[in-house]
């Protein structure tokens, strides 16, 4: 990596005021350091947020929400007492299965939501593409794309890498961000671009904005959620597809359902129609499989990733079944 200045701000306001060209925020730095070492990024100044851990790493319930500090680690999330119970299942599972124990013990949930995608073209200095700003187009489109997007692609085939984002989104989470102009709260879905493309950023934060917390509504008593992902191997592998679902069943019928898919599109992918299709139906494997078919109906696989469609369908049906069984 290239030399940089590491600054430790005294307050969030100070951190926010330091924003500018060549300045990046660092939480645990797992994602950031990889990029620096690969030299795809060379900031002049790195603002270390970890000093705010005392305030920003707590996980607390207040009233009908749970507030997760952005600097809480994935392990903290996976083990949090206040998140016990079937309603938060998707979140616990997504945080608890990400990466490796070592990574989970350091990685922050905020950093996980804001990490950059893992496209092997995007992340290597040797390759230039429209998204990393060093080339004209998308190299995965005609190149090697077995781990790339199958849904909603525009001119960039990246997939969203976060395990936790689909789960939080399915649970209806919002995020609190603090910037020069003060604090604002936005639904997690709005942290990501609506129409992701090659030229645009992977998230919608302004340069001076810091993610401080994630607020998750406490699910109703009859709500269950689950997260499932497919992999090529069991020890530490990026998901090839992932599904987070929230489900409420009343009188043997699905009353409420949300489905958010991971690793299949450039953003956590909301399968609204599929979720809607289950309302009023019995929570049976057959119905779940039908909904899963619908969720992938618009899939446009690339040359090497057509397998993601059946795998994604199975993974989604599994997640629905797991939630229904809780």
């Amino acid at each position, binding site marked *: *990596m*290239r*030399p940089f200045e590491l600054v430790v701000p005294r307050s969030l306001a100070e951190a926010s005021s330091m924003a500018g060209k060549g300045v990046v925020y660092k939480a645990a730095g797992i994602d950031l350091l990889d990029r620096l070492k690969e*030299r795809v990024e060379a900031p002049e100044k790195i603002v270390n947020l970890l000093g705010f851990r005392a305030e920003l790493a707590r996980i607390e319930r207040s009233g009908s929400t749970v507030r997760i500090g952005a600097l809480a680690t994935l392990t903290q999330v996976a083990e949090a007492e206040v998140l016990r119970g079937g309603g938060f299942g998707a979140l616990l599972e997504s945080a608890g299965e990400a990466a490796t124990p070592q990574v989970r013990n350091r990685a922050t949930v905020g950093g996980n939501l804001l990490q950059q995608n*893992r496209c*092997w*073209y995007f992340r*290597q200095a*040797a*390759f230039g593409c429209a998204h990393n700003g060093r080339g004209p187009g998308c*190299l995965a489109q*005609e*190149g*090697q794309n*077995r*781990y790339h997007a199958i849904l909603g692609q525009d001119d960039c085939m990246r997939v969203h890498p976060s395990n936790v984002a689909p789960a939080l989104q399915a649970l209806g989470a919002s995020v609190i961000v603090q910037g020069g102009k003060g604090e604002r709260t936005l639904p997690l879905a709005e942290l990501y671009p609506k129409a992701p493309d090659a030229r645009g950023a992977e998230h919608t934060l302004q340069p001076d904005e810091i993610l401080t917390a994630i607020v998750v509504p406490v699910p109703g008593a009859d709500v269950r959620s689950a997260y499932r992902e*497919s*992999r*090529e*191997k*069991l*020890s*530490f*592998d*990026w998901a*090839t597809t992932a599904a987070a679902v929230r489900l409420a069943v009343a009188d043997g019928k699905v009353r409420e359902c949300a489905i958010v898919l991971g690793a299949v599109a450039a953003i956590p992918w909301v399968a609204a129609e599929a979720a809607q299709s289950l309302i009023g139906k019995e929570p049976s494997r057959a119905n779940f499989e039908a909904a899963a078919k619908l969720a992938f109906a618009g899939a446009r696989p690339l040359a*090497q*990733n*057509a*397998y993601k469609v*059946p*795998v994604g369908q*199975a*993974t989604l*049906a*599994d997640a629905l079944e797991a939630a229904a069984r809780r």
Partner: protein
Amino acid sequence: MNPRREEHEITVGFAGNAKKIKVKVDDRDLRPWDLETKFQTVGTDQARADGVAKVTGRARYAYDINLPGLLHGLIVRAPIAKGTLKALDLEAAKAMPGVKAVLATKQPGARIRFAGDDVAAIAAETLDAARDAAEKVRMEFTAEPHVTDVLEAPGAPKLDQDGEVTAPWPERGAERIETAIQAARHVRSATYRCEVQTHSSLETHGLTARWYGDRLTVWASTQATFGTRAGLAGTLRIPAENITVHTEFMGGGFGSKFQPGIEGVLACRLAKAADAPVKLMLSRHEEHTCAGNRPGAIIQIRAGVNDDGKITAFDYRCWGEPGFTGQGGGTRAPSDYFRDTARRDTQDNVATDMDAGRAMRAPGWPQGFFATELMLDELAAAIGMDPLEFRLKNDRNEVRLAEWRQGAEAFRWAERRNKTPGQPRAGGDPRWLHGCGLSSAAWGGMGGPGARVTCRIHADARVEVRNGAQDLGTGLKTVLQMLAAEELGIPVAMVTPFVGDTRDPVGPASGGSVTTPTMAPAVRHAAALARRELAARVAAKLGVDAAKVACAGGQVTVEGGQTLSFVDACKLLGSDTVEVVGERFPNHQGYANSVAGCQFAEVRVDRHTGLVQVLDMLAVQDCGTVVARKQAESQTLGAMIQGVSYALHEQRIVDHLTGRMVNGDFLYYKLTGPLDMPAMRAILFPVANGHTNVGAAGIGEPVAVAPAAAIANAVFNAIGVPVRHLPLTPDKILKALARARRV
């Protein structure tokens, strides 16, 4: 002058199949150990001699060498896959801060053979300073169209949409095989494929070099200390005796580290140019792309079998994928099934503009065994015969025939095999399909002459054994320690082994699984000489006739007189340390020139997601005399783990537009991890081979031959259709399942 020989009658073979043979042994050598030998230490479980140093981080690998004023070296590499270097300007790089030396490794006009070919080298105060400077190297190339997709390369066979070779069988040598194929009751033909696997050694290639005037010392990550010394001497044009190579610890080589390599040579050149020590270790991406690999292969087999299961024809052809050299991509089918079968073996290479293949743990064998063993199961299925029965019918290796039976019983083969391939277990989760498979294993690995070992006995009864070859992680230090202890009749803790310093006696390169079989007889000989010398010294001290004093079983006995413990006998040495050098004599004709083994695997397949999990594996393996049991078992388990990884996960993925590997890391180059590992068992099958005074045979490679084949067969048994292309990733499994549903 012919050595004088003594004839010994020894018992060779294995329990239940013992044979007496006469061997003629150099009279300076020892009577070979045989089936009747009773051991005290050999064959027991002993902790690895350097285990504590390794797990506590005290072991210093080449990577860990840090010297005052150490510079960091880096190789500047070509980004194009094929063409010529047109211009090279290093001036801007030389002017960068912290840069101490910059060398061109190619001159304008030189060929670029693959993306990653070396162009220049830089030494700087930090690796980052070297990388900054590398970005200032101005290189221009005349690029030419390259081919990195083996299927697009000249000479590659055309495959149809099912992946089957469409070309006709060759005419050369066709007569006999065609007749046999025509005559066979059942004939099957199929095409198998293996992707390129990289060695993925945890310690990358490279070394640290330091000059003292015209003398050079290097700390190298190598599996051939003496080969590295010779390679450096030849390339740098200095006498070998001016070079010392240290490899006390070694972070994996698997066949890729026999030479100093361009990285090693450049470290030395940079150190000379900068007049300072230089460390140059490859990055992970370079390790994957510039340090060799196990070549991919396209293998087509057609075979004929009779109703009774006898294989009557076996036609094998292979297109290896060895990279830019276009050489060395050959693969090897098992031979013990086909000793009286009409057989043809055709090998071709398909050159691509990629890094050259290198030897990798049983080079060419895992590919050939995968294809052949899967074909055997397909044939067995075609005639409705159990695969084990099919093997017993055709295998002509008497050691393996015994191993098949022992393994099948230990694995409970008959019980566990899926009787209805493609169907879930009755009463089990219908989602998971279970299956069991097996494969033979084979190798040579008897070692040969050319090694020597120093043995010293000190007055405090410490015994030192030394050899300059490396322990590449297989356990050589422990082997030396245990054999010296056995011969001297003392506890292993009293013996300290030293390896990996070329100032000590010469030893082999660790390739072909010869290190233990080559070293073992030499250390035993050294310990025997030391034992005799100790007795002679004791005789002299006590003033008795040397012929009346013997050292054996940890004691020194004076005929008709006193008996001294080993410790008390050593005390008589004073400062007069015993020092002897043992030799490795040539192998004599013994029992079996190869080793045999077999492996069994159980898998389950998720029919929804295509995920394959290996649940259980068993290896039964002969490695001659088992010296260090724990280390031999560990080699076996390690090979199974590497085999699971090869069978299920590992593949080099290349961007064909640029010729650059896209997964040159450990994120997307997938290695099996703890959760993917099966339960594993290694049964060592003792065989007395009588080739040397110890009779050890190699184990590192034979056990690496079978795992992928056994796993592929287990998947076939689980899902009912063969998947003929490694690695067996979910996409391929789902495709096979979909095809099975259609037919």
